[in-house]
């Protein structure tokens, strides 16, 4: 019993210590600009809201969730009236969508989520931040602005109430890099592209002679084969990626995703049945067209403003190629070194291809019939 009480006391102390530190007043504003428009989350200290609006209904010095809940409409109208967003010069209307609670290093915060009705895909965003400007000029608003894979931060306060952010145009290099990054992530994140490429590359260090595999004589031979496959794949997917991203052609995503799975099956099966012999670059090109549509879906999901599209296309594609090159750079020396071994010819080529066929077949069924296996 005594142990339990000691534990209770400890917990009370720990709780009190965590909840209350002395810090000047800060609020955390996160704005995100994406396909659906602009949405925000604003974390405002209960201590500050109490000073401004009075939250402590029963006056006992403690703020309960019930007391906070009762004041949520007042909080939303008070706070949102002190935040101005202008997209390309047009004022956005802010609407609260949810109220939650959170804890930061100095205590409890109201979490106000909202959406902003703005013109779509603005090229610039002006933020006018005046929360508590009249009550506590030392209050700071710490902004995190996320746009198309890029995040920047800014501090608002007295003397710095208005700031303008270029969402397109300036910082091209940074944006380009962000899309390159996105492209690299995509090729490593989507196993279907890697497996497709690997299936076509696995036999590149071998030649089939009288029904059995033999290692190629020189690295140059292997390199030329890899170059053919990779170039064909790149040309094809760049072509369809551009066409789809620019809106010239569009295909239903379920069809594209299913066809990508099928392409992996066909590419891997080609290592087991000799139909692909010497024509792997053709497979790479034909199915590369399909993979390009798959890459384009990522860009469409990012919902890029028109002026950003070409930049994004360029960066994203460059990222995909870089990812591919990295795979080749690891694969080629390793495969060339192992090409003469039983392990490579049986376990890696035959076993690996078989495994890839199975995995991709599962994807194909899942995607084509929209089921989970």
């Amino acid at each position, binding site marked *: 019993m005594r142990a339990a009480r000691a534990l209770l006391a400890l917990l009370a102390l720990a709780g009190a210590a965590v909840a209350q530190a002395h810090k000047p007043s800060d609020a955390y504003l996160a704005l995100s600009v994406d396909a659906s428009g602009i949405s925000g989350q604003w974390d405002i200290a209960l201590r500050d809201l109490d000073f401004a609006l009075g939250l402590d209904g029963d006056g006992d010095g403690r703020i*309960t969730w019930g007391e906070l809940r009762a004041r949520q409409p007042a909080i939303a109208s008070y706070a949102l009236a002190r935040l101005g967003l202008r997209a390309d010069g047009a004022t956005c209307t802010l609407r609260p969508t949810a109220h939650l609670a959170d804890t930061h290093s100095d205590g409890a915060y109201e979490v106000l989520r909202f959406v902003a009705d703005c013109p779509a895909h603005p090229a610039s965003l002006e933020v006018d931040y005046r929360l508590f400007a009249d009550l506590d000029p030392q209050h700071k608003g710490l902004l995190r602005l996320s746009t198309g894979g890029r995040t920047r931060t800014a501090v608002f306060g007295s003397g710095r109430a208005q700031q303008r952010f270029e969402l397109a145009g300036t910082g091209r290099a940074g944006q380009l890099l962000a899309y390159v990054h996105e492209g690299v992530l995509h090729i490593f994140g989507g196993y279907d592209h890697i497996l497709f490429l690997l299936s076509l590359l696995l036999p590149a260090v071998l030649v089939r002679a009288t029904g059995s595999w033999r290692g190629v004589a020189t690295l140059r031979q292997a390199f030329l084969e890899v170059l053919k496959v990779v170039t064909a794949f790149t040309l094809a997917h760049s072509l369809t990626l551009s066409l789809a991203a620019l809106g010239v052609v569009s295909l239903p995503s379920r069809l594209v995703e299913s066809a990508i799975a099928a392409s992996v099956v066909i590419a891997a099966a080609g290592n087991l049945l000799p139909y692909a012999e010497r024509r792997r670059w053709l497979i790479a090109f034909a199915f590369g067209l399909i993979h390009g549509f798959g890459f384009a879906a990522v860009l469409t999901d990012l919902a890029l403003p028109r002026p950003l599209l070409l930049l994004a296309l360029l960066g994203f594609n460059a990222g995909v190629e870089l990812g591919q090159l990295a795979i080749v750079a690891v694969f080629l020396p390793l495969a060339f070194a192992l090409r003469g071994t039983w392990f490579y010819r049986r376990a890696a080529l035959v076993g690996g291809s078989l495994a890839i066929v199975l995995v991709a077949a599962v994807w194909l069924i899942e995607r084509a019939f929209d089921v989970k296996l």
Partner: protein
Amino acid sequence: MTRPRRTSLACFAVCLLAAGAVHAVPRVPAHDDEVLEQLPYRADDPVTVRLRAERLRLAQEPGNVRLAVHLAREYLELGRESGDPRYAGYAQAALMRWWDLPAPPREVLLLRAILHQRVHEFTAALSDLTALIGADPRNAQALLTRATVLTVQGSFAQAAADCRALTSLTEELVASTCLSAVAAVSGDLAGSRERLRAALEANRSSDPGLREWALTTLAEMAERAGDAPSAEALFRAALALDPADPYLLAAWSDFLLEQRRPREVLALLESTRRSDALFLRYALAEKAAGLASWRASAAELGGRIDASRLRGDRVHLREEARYALLLGGDARAAFALARENWDVQKEPADVLILTASAAAAGDAAALEAVRDWLAQSRLEDVRVRALVGAP
């Protein structure tokens, strides 16, 4: 009997986990009666009620400079007592109408200077104080504040001039404390101790707040002279006059930590962990006492420091440097912070952290620079001397 208790213990484990996770995601609390925040004041507290009424009156009479100054002074005092920086913002808000004027009323100018000083904007503070003293050369508070800022910046001759100007304007103890505080860090520690002791003796009936300040100042001098018994007696006498002064608590804790008495610091600061400066001492004491809990405290303190960096604050560089050196174990980072701090302020505590971090980082050039500063300023401090190995 056993069953309900086991359930409640299980609930505790879960609640504890939940409490640890609260930082991660915004949530909807399960119950309306869940307490989210404990305010530092009650809504029916007389001070809270009075200040709220004064704020409302000021809103109705926005041009009432006397009311505004009165309100700002009250918030400044609350801020000093509690160490809570929000009150400085409230004080500034009361002065808003005059804040950006090039030549506001004198009372506003003084408070604006004090507010600048609190956030270590010393240049802005000095410019306001110089304007004020130019218009009102007999303004004791302005002279004292300017002497303090100049001492912090290491401009000892100018600071001493301001202290001397105070002599005919205010109580003897104010001018004596001011003057000996400057002399004690610029070449005359022993004489300053003697004179301040005599002044305290001669002014036994002075205001307790004033005596507390003088006693704290004298205690710090004794500490720098390596006279621990005197320092302890003086700190205790000051604490008897104001046991809650955050500056005094920090200085006394530093003394106890130096004397390797961390347990006393833990007992002293248990209830004052809200203040970053005092929480730092608490965490240092936990570590010195060999308590494993210091790691959790250090992590929390690190979170607070990160939060203040996010807002762009550079107010607590000295504390940040101590954190990096003694809790973060990063001598290089500590030295960089101590250097940056040194460009702004040059009190003994700033010399001490600069020296300690330079020694830990093995930066011989920096130690040489400290030796130069000691020779030039003639600062006497046994702790610094031990670190630089100066005679």
